C-alpha cells in the first residue's frame, strides 16, 4: 500500500506549487504511469481520495486524479524496429527475435494540473 505515500508525495509537490503561485484551486491532477511502475491504479485512486480529504487546508477535496497509462516501449536488436506493447513480451512482434530491449515502463510522473 505504498500508493498512499505516493499520493502524499504528489500533494506535497502540489502544495509547494500552490504556495508559489497564488494558491489557486486545483480541479484535477494528471499523472502518467508505466505498466511496470508497481502502482495499482485502483489503490492509487483510493489513496488519492483519502489523502486529499484534509490536504492543503481542505483545498484539495474533490480534486480528481487523472491517470494516463503508458505502454511499454521495445526496440528489437534483430530488425532494429521499435514497437509498443500493453504487456511484457519475450519476442519482437515484427521479426520474432527473442528478448527485445525494453525502454521505460517504470514511469511515475506528474504531468499537469488543471487550476481555476
Amino acid at each position, binding site marked *: 500500500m505504498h500508493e498512499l505515500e505516493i499520493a502524499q508525495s504528489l500533494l506535497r509537490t502540489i502544495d509547494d506549487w500552490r504556495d508559489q503561485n497564488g494558491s489557486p484551486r486545483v480541479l484535477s491532477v494528471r499523472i502518467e504511469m508505466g505498466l511496470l511502475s508497481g*502502482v495499482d491504479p485502483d489503490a492509487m485512486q483510493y489513496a488519492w481520495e483519502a489523502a486529499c480529504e484534509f490536504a492543503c487546508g481542505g483545498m484539495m477535496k474533490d480534486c480528481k486524479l487523472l491517470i494516463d497509462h503508458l505502454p511499454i516501449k521495445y526496440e528489437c536488436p534483430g530488425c532494429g524496429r521499435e514497437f509498443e506493447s500493453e504487456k511484457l513480451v519475450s519476442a519482437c512482434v515484427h521479426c520474432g527475435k527473442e528478448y527485445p530491449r525494453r525502454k521505460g515502463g517504470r514511469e*511515475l510522473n506528474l504531468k499537469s494540473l488543471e487550476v481555476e
Partner: protein
Amino acid sequence: MCKDCGCDGHHHHHHGDGMHAHTGADGKVYYHSHETSTREVPLEQAILAKNDNTAELNRAFLKGRGTRTFNLISSPGAGKTTLLIKTLEALKAAGIPTAVIVGDQYGEIDADRMRSTGVPVTQIQVHDSCHLTAQQISAVLETSVPAGTKILFIENVGNLVCPVAFDLGEDEKIALLSTPEGEEKPLKYPGLFTAAKLVLLTKMDIASALGWDKELCIRNVKTTNPQAEILEISSKDGSGFDAWIDYLKHSITQ
C-alpha cells in the same frame, strides 16, 4: 466576509478581470477568481522527486566513502537474512569490510541474527509502512557505514512490490526469488525483476523436491528483463556461493 472562502481579512477587488484577493489568517495573500475559467499548468516531474533527490545525496555520500551499495529486495521468507549472514562471513574472511542496514516492520530480530558476524548492522523499523525510503536511509547513513566500508547491503522490507518504487541511493537492486515461490513470480510481479541487475534464485537445495522448473523460471526472468544476470544459490548447502562472492568482489573493483 468573503462568500467564497469565508475569510474576514482585507479584500482587494480587481474589477474587470474577475480576480479577488485577500490576506488569509496565515498572512499569505490568496487570489481567486469569481469567474470559472480553468487552465492547464504543465508540471513535468517525477512524483517521487523528493525521494529521488535524497537518494542521489545518499549515492554521492556512499561513492565518496568508496562504498558499493546493494539493495536486496524479495518477498518475505525468500532467504535474504540467511544469505546475508553467510555472505558477510565470506567477505570478512576475504578481508572486505561490509555494513548492513536492514528494514523490517517491527523488532530487531534480523539485525541481531546478522550482528553475530561482527559486522555493523543498523535496524530500521518502518512500522506500518511496507518499504524503506531514501529519507530513512539518509537519517542513519553516517553512523551505519564506517569509513573504509567496501560494501553496504540494504536488506529491504520483505515485499515484492512497494520497495521497487523507492530509490535508496543504491548502485544496484538485487532480486531474490526462492524456489518455493514457484516459477511465475517474475511475470506476476514484473516491477522488481525489470529493475534488478542481478536475480538470485535461492533455496536451490530443495528445488528438485518441489518439482521446481528451472528452465521455465529463467525464461520468465528473461522475459521481464533480458539483461538480468541470474545466479543459482543455496545458503544451506553453500552451492553457488563462489559465483555470488565473485560477483560482489568484481563489483567493487570496477
